[in-house]
């Protein structure tokens, strides 16, 4: 998962202590992904253990500073470089559909319909979010939303397809 890599990315920017990393993360994801301080510290511990970060000491307020190591940088580049694998059955609905067919689930059409409604609602919300991002001038996030919308559009098409069977 990528909390680890996002911390590496933040540390690549500048040496930081734990609280700085938390606020940096919140800013990055527009506070949309609640991440608590505990999570940050456990992750940092793990990173330090793996020699991906190291601590040059504490700052004046006695907060522990972290810097990225050469190995850490390598790991970050590696992560960015490698393509993301997709797994068919990672999508839960796909799996549900598989199982529903297996047990000859009577409410399958309804299931599809409800899923479709959910997706449409997601589209509505996402579009609104996109508008917000647009207004806030966050182009990167706006593009992420566009991508998500395209996925949802594909999902709807697929749902229409399987609904016909």
């Amino acid at each position, binding site marked *: 998962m990528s909390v680890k890599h996002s911390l590496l990315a933040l540390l690549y920017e500048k040496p930081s202590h734990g609280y700085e990393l938390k606020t940096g993360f919140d800013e990055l994801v527009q506070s949309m992904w609640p991440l608590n301080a505990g999570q940050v510290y456990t992750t940092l511990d793990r990173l330090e253990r793996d020699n991906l970060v190291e601590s040059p000491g504490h700052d004046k307020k006695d907060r522990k500073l972290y810097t990225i190591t050469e190995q850490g940088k390598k790991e970050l580049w590696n992560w960015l470089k490698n393509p993301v694998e997709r797994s068919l059955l990672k999508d839960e609905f796909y799996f549900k559909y598989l199982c529903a067919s297996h047990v000859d689930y009577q409410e399958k059409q309804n299931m599809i319909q409800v899923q479709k*409604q959910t997706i449409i*609602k997601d589209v*509505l*919300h996402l*579009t*609104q*979010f*996109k508008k917000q991002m647009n207004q806030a001038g966050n182009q990167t996030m706006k593009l992420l939303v566009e991508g998500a919308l395209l996925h949802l559009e594909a999902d709807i098409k697929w749902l229409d397809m399987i609904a016909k069977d």
Partner: protein
Amino acid sequence: MIHTKGVKKEYKAGGEVIPILKGVDFSVKQGEFVAIMGPSGSGKSTLLQLLGGLDIPTEGSIALDGVKLETKSEKKRTIIRRQKIGFVFQNYQLLPTLTVYENIAFPMHASGRKIDTEAIYDLLDAVDLKGYGKRFPHELSGGQQQRVAIARALINKPAILLADEPTGNLDREHSSDILELLSSFHQDRGQTIVMVTHDMFSAGYADRIVLFKDGIIETEVKREDDDYAEFLSRFMA
């Protein structure tokens, strides 16, 4: 604002009766932005034309502000259309011989109103076409033409703006412009909008999406503000 009840529409083609709408119950509240979505041939455009009084249903009733359109003559419907309806089409339908300014002024002329120059310039400004008044449609890009069409549709301050695939001829980027323009009219001025589209991307701008399939409403989905936060956290996680 609009209420349809059991609206059916049939066409005769070569002795065969083809049902397009098979009983549509549908309403639009003042200030709503509704998208009618469905695959092509599902009857969504026909519904829009009925809402605009361009035709009357074979059966059922369409009430616009309490006025039953199907009981009105062609001429009455035209007059109602003038006063209450603004149309935006997929292929813009600007009058090629009129300038941008004149295109926007056309509905005012047609309904015999006094020409409100200021209103026209305001709208030109609002659709981001300041200084384009003297151009002719063929001198504009598709997105610009559609913005003129929107201005034209809004010049008589219609109660409802009916948009039929307004972004159908545009690429994604220009589509966003148009849709954002529409939703800004909706948000800032409370413009009621009914938009027909086959495209989720456009439909997402609406408050409510009506899914249309084979001449009936399959389902309706509303954006409810209360679960917006929940959606976001789910979406982001």
